């Protein structure tokens, strides 16, 4: 039991760290976007910038594109947790929870693909 616990303590630590990093990076993008809006003045309510246009719009310092990137990073953060769980369970050869985590990843990935279509 003790050895088993030591093995899985890494999942808790990596999960916590990945969440903090994801939130931090997301907030940085969102804050930069809001600062750009503050500088250029608030405009009307504009929708999400399409994924295909994101890279060039970010380089053009489009505030909406930068905020959209921040939102996407935030939404990817819980997905990263599932990936960490998959890595942990596959190393430990816990087939049941590897299967459960893979199912969850498929559900989340399909939702993400749908959103980015």
């Amino acid at each position, binding site marked *: 039991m003790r050895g088993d616990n030591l093995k899985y303590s890494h999942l808790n630590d990596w999960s*916590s760290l990945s969440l903090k990093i994801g939130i931090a990076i997301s907030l940085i993008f969102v804050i930069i976007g809001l600062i750009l809006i503050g500088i250029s003045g608030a405009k009307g309510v504009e929708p999400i910038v399409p994924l295909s246009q994101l890279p060039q719009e970010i380089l053009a310092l489009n505030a909406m594109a930068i905020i959209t990137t921040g939102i996407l990073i935030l939404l990817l953060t819980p997905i990263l947790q599932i990936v960490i769980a998959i890595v942990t369970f596959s190393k430990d050869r816990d087939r049941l929870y590897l299967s459960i985590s893979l199912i969850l990843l498929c559900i989340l990935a399909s939702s993400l693909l749908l959103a980015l279509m």
Partner: protein
Amino acid sequence: MTEVSLWALGGIGLVAGLLGSALGVGGGAFIVPMLTLALHLPIHIAIGSSLVAIVATSCTATSIYTKNRLTNLKLGLLLETATTPGAIIGGFIVVLLASSVLNALFGVILIYIAYTMAVSQPAIAEDSRHKGNSVKPDNTSTNLSNWRAGSYYDQSLDKVVTYKIRHIPQGLGSGFFTGTLSSLLGIGGGAVQVPILNLVMGLPMKATIATSSFMMAITATVGALIHYYHGNVYPIIVAPLVIGVFLGARAGTELAQRARGILLKRIFAGFLFITAILMFLKAANII
């Protein structure tokens, strides 16, 4: 979108984050009515925005709970296999429903949340009834060794609390329902999930809140992505909300430690009841 509206959105997020972390429930229940009643945003956009904000609060809270080994990660992952499909279904049903129907449904859920907050008991009274010992744990997690049982070190009780998990099928069923509600109404689902985890499945309250928070982050992510697909997520609305929610969640943990939780819950229950009435009036196009 004016500068005043951006500050108003930030303020709504701040209060939602504060309430969510101090009371353990209520982020979406505050955000959606405020966006629709105070800022007159269409409810579908309010729901999409709220779900993104819930991801921010839940991730913030979960990062602390997992570090402290409170979260039963295996149980959370298991229950999410039912919750996430519910979230997808809710996300597709929502666009089929008229705004008036959603406003009325939201009023009903607010009445339920107000009731649960009004009758809730202090968490410590429940946790002290679980088995435990005063041996302080080392830096290991005991929550993943067997998902039918779990344990964590409770600082306030100064002991390791152990518990057994019961009624997994009921948990999966309620998880599906919670996921559907979450995407349908833009709430985290804690008001439904917390009583199930605590009263039906046998988790102590602290493990319940931690595990529920972990689940909310994933459920709200699915719902937010579906709403993103529907075009209900606007960066200019979400950005100040997320900043406000993050700041409020940090302050809320301080408030939770200093203020009487039961008093806060009663006050918020009263506020939710009034808000429910307003949502019903909005559904009837009276306001």
